[in-house]
């Protein structure tokens, strides 16, 4: 879609995953840092939704955008769901949810780029 935004999301998602991975390794439950990491990812995903919608409206992107739109919207659910689910666990296993969420977002962005450029 836009390489800068996609790269930024992947980097921030992986950083959030790494941060929460360290929280888990330190045997801590989820704290504000983990929530902030997921929040930063979510903010960038919201920007992506806006940019993607505008570009699609101008006729850019894949010829059959249904799958791309599915990703564009579904990916927004992951960080908040991860934060809620992780907060319910007051042990080291809470932040591992953010690790999964961050990795999933990074993989989905790679897939979205393939869909956008039509290379898959």
């Amino acid at each position, binding site marked *: 879609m836009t390489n800068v935004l996609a790269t930024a999301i992947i980097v921030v998602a992986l950083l959030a995953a790494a941060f929460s991975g360290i929280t888990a390794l330190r045997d*801590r*439950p*989820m*704290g*504000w840092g983990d929530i902030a990491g997921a929040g930063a990812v979510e903010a960038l995903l919201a920007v992506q939704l806006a940019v993607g919608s505008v570009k699609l409206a101008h006729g850019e992107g894949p010829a*059959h955008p*249904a*799958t791309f739109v*599915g*990703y564009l919207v*579904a990916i927004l*659910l*992951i960080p908040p*769901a*991860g934060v809620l*689910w*992780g907060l*319910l*666990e*007051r*042990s080291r*296993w*809470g932040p*591992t*949810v953010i690790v*999964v*969420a961050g990795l*999933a977002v990074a993989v989905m962005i790679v897939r979205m780029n393939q869909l956008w450029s039509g290379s898959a």
Partner: protein
Amino acid sequence: MPESSETERAGEPAGARGGATGGGPGRLLVAVYGIFALAATARAGVQIATKFADAPLAYTLSAIAALIYILATVALARGGRTSRRVAVAACSVELAGVLIVGTYSLLDPGAFPEPTVWSGYGAGYGCVPLVLPVIGLWWLRRTARREVRAAGGAARV
């Protein structure tokens, strides 16, 4: 927030509580199941909405896979006796599904013009769909044993 972890340390570790399939390491398992439930549902939704007539078998299977992932996610997250049974059933069907669809998709690639979650044993998803039900069933067994032990201990007191 770190202070609330003390209640955890004072009592039993998370996941040791009866029926806590969604606690402790189960929290991570449910998260992965949740991602797959979302991915499979979105994929099946798009396939059925836009091109169901192209490959009704593959897309119906996609929808069934999505349903099973949702069931497994919710059942594992809830815990308790009924949910545990539902989770065992869902994970078993999931394992059978990934093995059958995986084998079938390799033998007759024409039947799956577009890959489903389970084709090629979930190779498109890093084979996680193959490993996930095995871990799920193992986790259900493990937490069930703990539950029996906890119940036995309570009965003796």
